[in-house]
């Protein structure tokens, strides 16, 4: 089993490496390079050459890639082109903010949707099953900015419970942070709950036709115990995978929500960088997101291995 886990972890690292190549290549094939972008109207051939040399752009792409990649794994993501600041210092507090919001949303979304999914499976076909299905499907069908604004109107304007702007700053006390970030966290919860709820419900129900479930019923156990104790452990693997995908989305896909609530996260930073053609920042954000995505999915794969009793206990 350790070997299996080791293989998964190595595969994760390899994926991350491949993604870094992809990010680098993609930013390279954009028309025009950084030098011409920064210089704009003043781009005389001489000025371009000098500037390129200064940025190291005259070197071959492979050399530049390895310089960048080696720097990145040591925590040196280079400097932003637009304002010359060190990217890692800029990105750190924003990344913390993004992770805080994602963690906060996950804390609400995962127990809520897995719990509701289990309840829906126990009460299959009953009112609560249908209601939870329809409601989560509705929230996932509506664009996220719309949910954000509806929540603002309801809970910031009509009922002034929460602030409409989720501006956090470094010195803010943690309780305050939770309070301020509640509306964006709820918005994100509504976005990811449907997937996890439906997957939990479906995979539990797909186990429910197994002979050992029939056996559990014939032992005289109530349906709730059969679902939680007999079906859920065997349905765990697909549920874990979907949770991981959604957690990754909470980190990576928050751009719009951050914009609606003007929350200072990595998403906004990246959007800014893209519009200003600040390639090193875009690369840095891309790498960071890829790392989170690959990391979470690798963890999910490892967790799926760990919950399998056949792999945990050798014959």
């Amino acid at each position, binding site marked *: 089993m350790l070997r299996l886990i080791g293989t998964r972890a190595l595969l994760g690292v390899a994926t991350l490496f491949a993604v870094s190549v992809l990010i680098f290549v993609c930013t390279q094939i954009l028309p025009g390079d950084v030098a011409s972008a920064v210089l704009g109207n003043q781009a005389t051939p001489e000025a371009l050459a000098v500037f390129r040399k200064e940025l190291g752009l005259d070197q071959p792409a492979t050399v530049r890639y390895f310089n960048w990649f080696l720097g990145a794994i040591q925590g040196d993501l280079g400097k932003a082109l637009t304002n010359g600041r060190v990217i890692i210092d800029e990105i750190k507090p924003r990344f913390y903010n993004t992770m805080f919001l994602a963690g906060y949303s996950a804390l609400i979304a995962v127990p809520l949707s897995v719990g509701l999914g289990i309840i829906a499976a126990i009460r299959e076909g009953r009112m609560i099953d249908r209601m939870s299905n329809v409601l989560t499907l509705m929230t996932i069908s509506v664009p996220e900015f719309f949910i954000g604004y509806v929540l603002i109107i309801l809970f910031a304007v009509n009922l002034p419970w929460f602030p409409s702007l989720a501006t956090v700053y470094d010195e803010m006390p943690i309780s305050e942070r939770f309070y301020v970030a509640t509306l964006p966290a709820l918005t994100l919860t509504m976005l990811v709950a449907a997937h996890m709820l439906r997957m939990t419900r479906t995979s539990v129900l797909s186990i429910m*036709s*197994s*002979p*050992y479930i*029939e*056996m*559990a*019923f*014939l*032992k*005289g*156990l*109530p349906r709730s*115990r059969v679902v939680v*104790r*007999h079906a859920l*452990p*065997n349905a765990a693997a697909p549920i874990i995978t979907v949770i991981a995908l959604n957690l990754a989305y909470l980190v990576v896909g928050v751009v719009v929500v951050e914009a609606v609530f003007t929350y200072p996260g990595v998403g906004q930073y990246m959007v800014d960088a893209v519009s200003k053609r600040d390639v090193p920042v875009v690369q840095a954000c891309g790498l960071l997101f890829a790392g989170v995505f690959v990391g979470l999915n690798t963890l999910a794969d490892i967790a799926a291995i760990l919950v399998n*009793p*056949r792999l945990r*206990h*050798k*014959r």
Partner: protein
Amino acid sequence: MAETETKQPILTIRGLVVETIIGVRLVDRIDVTLQRGEVLGLIGESGAGKSTIGLAAMCYARAGCRIAGGVVDIDGSDVRMLDAAGRRDVRGRRIAYIAQSAAAAFNPAHTIMDQVCEGPVQHGLMNRTEAEAWARELFRALDLPDPDNFGNKYPHQASGGQLQRAMSAMAMSCRPDILVLDEPTTALDVTTQIEVLILLKRLIREYNTAALYITHDLAVVAQVADRIKVLRHGKEVEEGTTSDVLHAPKQEYTAKLVAVRGAAASERASPATVTDKTILTVADCHASYGIVKVIDGVSLDVKHGETVAVVGESGSGKSTLARVITGLLPPTAGAITFKGATLPKALKQRSKDLKRQIQLVYQIPDVALNPRQTLHDIIGRPVQFYYGRSGNDVTDRVAELLRLVELPENYMFRKSTQLSGGQKQRICIARALAAEPDLIILDEPTSALDPLVAEEILKLLKRLQEELGLAYILITHDLDVVHRIAHRTAVMLKGQFVAFEDTETIFRGPYHPYTEKLVKAVPEMRIDWLDEALERKRVREAAEKTDSAKVA
């Protein structure tokens, strides 16, 4: 049972009707009466409604079915009138279930101990410590290895026979009054079956438990049941004491069921088909899966028109031998000669024509046929592939093949899902015949079928051999089948042949000890066969004991 008959029955079912949601009757007005400590055998072919009755006795209907009428009375109270909580209280505590496949009936995520103790703890009969102590006692009574620690195993860590016994322990965990045994030994090897059978019988006697014993095998039920009820298409055919049903069946259907078992004794493979031309020779073959050696020096030869049977328990390597001959698993050493020329080891290296001449028929026809294709596509494919025919040519050939396996031509555009198990197996045979092979490897061709249907398939195979001069390699664990159609038989144990001779000679004896174990483990249609087998076992063990004492 005379003294119990005066008492009130523990289980009474009257006028039981079970229907599917759309109103198809699965069980039609069945009555069952079971006294304390009595064993009633429910017998019939698949679709006869036996399992449905067993589950209905627990007031349980599978998804898509419902109990539409009748009374299920356990110890004086009508279970159907109880609410959900009341039914749960009865299930497991008063009446417990033993399923056919223990491997599937145990939850893979929990230890065996957790699952055995769950019933009594949840029903509030014992606390966990008491339940564990009782479970260990049951494990010991059921001859499970290392009973004190057996419960710590997960289901995948125990063998099929052990799991079946563990499931019996699980059923007994609440000391129920009634057991429902649903084909408890069908998934087991003959030698394991007899051990489980002995233990089940002892269990039932020791705790004076009443039992519904569901099976399609008359010989098995004859060993444990006091009375037998014969079912067909959800209706009762007849009911009587075990000896009456076996020796003086009143209905024609029952007589037919009894006769199938008896046929083996008289029928023999016809020697007329065998020629002296050898078609296939396997010389000193070795094969392994990774580092696990599965076939260890096997030599075999098959003549034109001959049937060679390979028998052995599961895990003996007999199916692997089929894979080696077909080229699916290249042997690590040894040579295979086909019609005088060396056969390339791997399937990839064999020419299309070589592949054509060796065909395979699988054990479970349901999964060997693509449910989305019509029979025309399934049978026509090898006709196109090997002979390059097309259009009406293929259709004509498919029609011819369907006639050959005794199916109507107009079945051609049906899909396999519309056929019965026996018809599906006929299609598998027709598909093999489409290639016009010289050798067909039959991997347990009848073990997934009901006895009467299996009988028909065997007849068909025999007829085809006579007409087309086919050679068969028959892989099976069913000695009855071997008796009837094999000219020569190889007995396989741990990847080696312990015997390879004329079928007559093999069964006449003197036996290799392992062959004897196999032969003697096949239940015979006599009521006291199991007791005799038990006696033989005791004598043998006693002899072994004195032997080892002498050596010491």
